């Protein structure tokens, strides 16, 4: 059995087929609660636990997939570049919004962690929770946080964004697509952006810009922590 599970092909195929299964499921039922990434992770953990497969075996293939986190972040530059004219026109509000958003996110995490008396390693891991995973992982790693806790926090935050932002837009009476898009991207990165894309094209594009912008600003701010 170990001969099979320790093959890199095991981890990769497990990820691909589980993920595409949940993608189809979400396609049919259209609810943010059926987030394919979340349920793929839950399912794979359950499978590994159930059959007693060591995570080292899974990571033979998993590490190969993780290798593509860096190129995945790099190509965000393309989506920002595509929206250059909107970006130029609203540069000041976008920069200001993302900066205040990043500061709010970081400050609120630190204050709340202190209030709950959380360990330093966990507090640090939660700090970059509102930015896109590869950046959040890098920030957490460099600051000495528990990286898997960061990944969990990023995913949970993204799902909260998917579920809550349409409601928040209504309660706070936000109609301007630039304002809405930037706020969605700044608080809940790529997962929130999937929701923004559903609302309108401008919402999605602005949210996309906010992913990159908040990511860079968070990296810069944490350099001073």
């Amino acid at each position: 059995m170990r001969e099979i599970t320790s093959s890199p092909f095991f981890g990769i195929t497990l990820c691909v087929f589980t993920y595409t299964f949940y993608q189809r499921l979400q396609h049919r039922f259209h609810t943010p609660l059926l987030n394919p990434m979340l349920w793929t992770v839950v399912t794979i953990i359950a499978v590994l636990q159930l059959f007693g497969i060591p995570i080292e075996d899974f990571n033979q293939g998993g590490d190969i997939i993780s290798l593509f986190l860096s190129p995945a972040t790099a190509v965000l530059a393309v989506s920002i570049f595509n929206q250059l004219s909107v970006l130029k026109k609203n540069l000041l509000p976008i920069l200001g919004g993302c900066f205040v958003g990043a500061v709010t996110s970081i400050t609120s995490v630190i204050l709340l962690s202190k209030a709950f008396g959380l360990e330093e390693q966990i507090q640090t891991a939660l700090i970059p929770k509102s930015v896109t995973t590869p950046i959040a992982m890098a920030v957490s790693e460099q600051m000495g946080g528990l990286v898997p806790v960061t990944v969990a926090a990023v995913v949970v935050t993204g799902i909260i964004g998917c579920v809550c932002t349409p409601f928040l837009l209504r309660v706070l009476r936000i109609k301007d697509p630039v304002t809405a898009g930037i706020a969605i991207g700044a608080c809940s990165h790529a997962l929130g952006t999937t929701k923004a894309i559903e609302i309108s094209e401008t919402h999605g594009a602005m949210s996309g810009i906010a992913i990159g912008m908040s990511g860079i600003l968070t990296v810069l701010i944490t350099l001073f922590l």
Partner: protein
Amino acid sequence: MAILLQIGVVLLICLLSEIVSLLLPFPFPGSVIAMIILFILLAAGVIKVGHIRQKAEFMLKNMAFFFIPAGVGIMEYFDVLKSCIVPFIVICVVSTILTFAATAGTVALIMRLQHRYRGRKGGDQDA
């Protein structure tokens, strides 16, 4: 451009970013450096969006997929998380809502200030 070459271009940028990351006097994530390098190359016209369009679309569309192994990694830390699951969830929810409101408020405020300033100048068409 052929897919293989598109992948090669993006991976080459990632390799360059690792080199830049080593040369920087302070720690900075290589993936973000790769994003900045690619943006500069696009802005400078060295790379055209068309050169890497399919690769970029593929990666952006399937972005979540590449995070799965990192998410599965959490099972090694179940014991750590178990002790703080309530604060973990509360912090994520409260902080996300605060961040959303603060960001939206700031964007709206700066836009309003800009409009008022442009309105006073009277010349700008979008004021």
